[in-house]
């Protein structure tokens, strides 16, 4: 079906054959009826960082960085959309039409590969009848380069976008629908990156220079989650993260990342950068302890095939809360 994803979206909607029908155990929970039921579901979609996708295939496959935050069962926020994020999103039973806002920590492929596709898919999930839902918008916030990324995407996918608009009458225009915004917090200070009646998202700059990155803190009515992205070694997230219930921290296993880089043929400089852009598990544990978090989740892993036991060993004993090694589709 052509233009953009009408084949998947229209038919998934029309025939009612959503992935939710095939939900396996451990995936999305049905909304609970009790008055004190949690309003927010936080789910890891992808848990791999870096570009060494070959390390993470097979049964324990990890896909690129991505986190889903679902509020009240029908309002969906996505933090990062690395390679495979959309596959995981649908696998988990989330519906793209529920997507309210996206936040990207970094414009590299482990964090943004599925961003453009997610936006195209969300756009074409709207009704095709001319005029219907013409006021729909979808925002994406990210570090400097996010607006440029969407411009490049529109240029690259002009044929499919134009065809969806002209031949199928999709409204509004994609350029109107997709609202990217570069967020540039001053050094060491967080800013509100996004807010609506359900969530508030704050952003803190972590990496700068040629590869700017943001950490996010996502506050919903009943959850408070920090998603660090690539932090490098100098960023101090303790004040930013203090009081969050959960910290999802990108980490590197230095020794095994070095070994992996060697088998890939990465040069010494590239290997140093791969490692320097990420925190060690021990540093993540120290941060979680200082921030008084209840739970630390290691996700955004480099490399993707270090064992859970080794990650926990590397994290050491600094953090006394719940320490968890994240896997794709884990509910947090």
């Amino acid at each position: 079906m052509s233009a953009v994803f009408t084949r998947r979206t229209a038919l998934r909607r029309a025939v009612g054959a959503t992935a939710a029908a095939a939900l396996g155990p451990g995936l999305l929970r049905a909304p609970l009826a009790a008055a004190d039921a949690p309003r927010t579901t936080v789910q890891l979609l992808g848990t791999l960082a870096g570009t060494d996708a070959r390390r993470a295939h097979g049964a324990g496959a990890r896909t690129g960085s991505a986190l889903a935050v679902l509020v009240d069962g029908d309002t969906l926020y996505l933090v990062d959309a690395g390679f495979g994020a959309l596959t995981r999103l649908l696998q988990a039973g989330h519906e793209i039409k529920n997507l309210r806002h996206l936040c990207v920590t970094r414009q590299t492929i482990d964090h943004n590969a599925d961003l453009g596709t997610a936006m195209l898919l969300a756009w074409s999930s709207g009704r095709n009848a001319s005029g219907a839902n013409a006021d729909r918008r979808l925002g994406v916030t990210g570090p400097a380069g996010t607006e440029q990324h969407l411009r490049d995407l529109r240029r690259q996918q002009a044929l499919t976008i134009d065809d969806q608009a002209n031949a199928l009458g999709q409204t509004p225009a994609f350029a109107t629908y997709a609202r990217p915004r570069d967020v540039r917090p001053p050094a060491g200070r967080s800013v509100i990156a996004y807010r609506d009646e359900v969530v508030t998202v704050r952003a803190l700059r972590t990496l700068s220079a040629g590869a700017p990155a943001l950490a996010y803190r996502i506050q919903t009515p009943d959850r408070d989650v920090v998603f660090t992205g690539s932090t490098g070694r100098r960023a101090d997230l303790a004040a930013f993260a203090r009081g969050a219930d959960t910290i999802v921290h990108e980490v590197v296993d230095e020794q095994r990342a070095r070994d992996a880089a060697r088998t890939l043929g990465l040069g010494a400089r590239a290997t140093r950068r791969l490692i320097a852009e990420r925190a060690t598990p021990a540093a993540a544990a120290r941060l979680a302890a200082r921030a008084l978090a209840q739970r630390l989740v290691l996700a955004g892993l480099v490399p993707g095939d270090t064992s859970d036991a080794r990650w926990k060993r590397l994290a050491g004993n600094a953090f006394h809360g719940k320490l968890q090694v994240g896997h794709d589709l884990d509910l947090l």
Partner: protein
Amino acid sequence: MSIVVDGELYLLDCGVGTVARLLAAGLDLGRLRHVFITHHHADHNADLSTLLTLAYTSGAPDITVHGPEPTARFVTTLRDLQRQTIGAAEQLGARRRFTATTRSAEFPLTGPVTAEGQTVLDDGRVQVTAKVVDHGGVPSVAYRFRTPDRDVTFSGDTGGRTSLADFARGSDTLVHEVIDYPTVYAALVATQGGASQQFLDHLQQDHSSPEVCGRAATDAGVPTLVLYHLIPAATGYPDALWRSHVAPYYQGNVVVAKDLLAI
């Protein structure tokens, strides 16, 4: 769709989920040499940027992307779209630049490609021919892959106005897209009160009915017909129903495609 010949990987189209599926299937991006795009609707190219970027950063050998317009623009824009990832790999790695290792082989939709089909690759392992099909206003082709022991034709997205019978004649397998329009229409009416006439026309005219698929397979004399690009999508729609729709027009072996199915 992937085709493996002597351990080398050839990929046909690259829609959303392709990279995840490739990795899940254990197929090594390092073995990828050629990608063929039938047309540039996003459900056929959405993962192409990711695939080419990861192949480059993983040290894969040179890759050529074949396809109709705008394949060339797609590949050159990718260098901008993923400038941070590719730029870092170029700057820090020992490899040649992305634009030197990742090339497009866009072919114009004129000449033989519009009539009987035209060879777009012959690398000693596989010969690939392309033929123009009718998918509304978007440049679209079908491909035929001849390997030492297989001969498979893929329809791409095509309406019923032009039959693939001549192009597919002699293949051992015809992989054909299919739509059950009456079911789709009824579902659209039931769930959202219908759809715009443009959209309905597109569904009906730019995709192929089971009758079109069955007749093409019969006229081409192929022993096996694989139905793919199923509309409605496979979940909740029984294979037996597809078979019964095709049965009046084709007596051969019918396979209903699934993700990761080996044929």
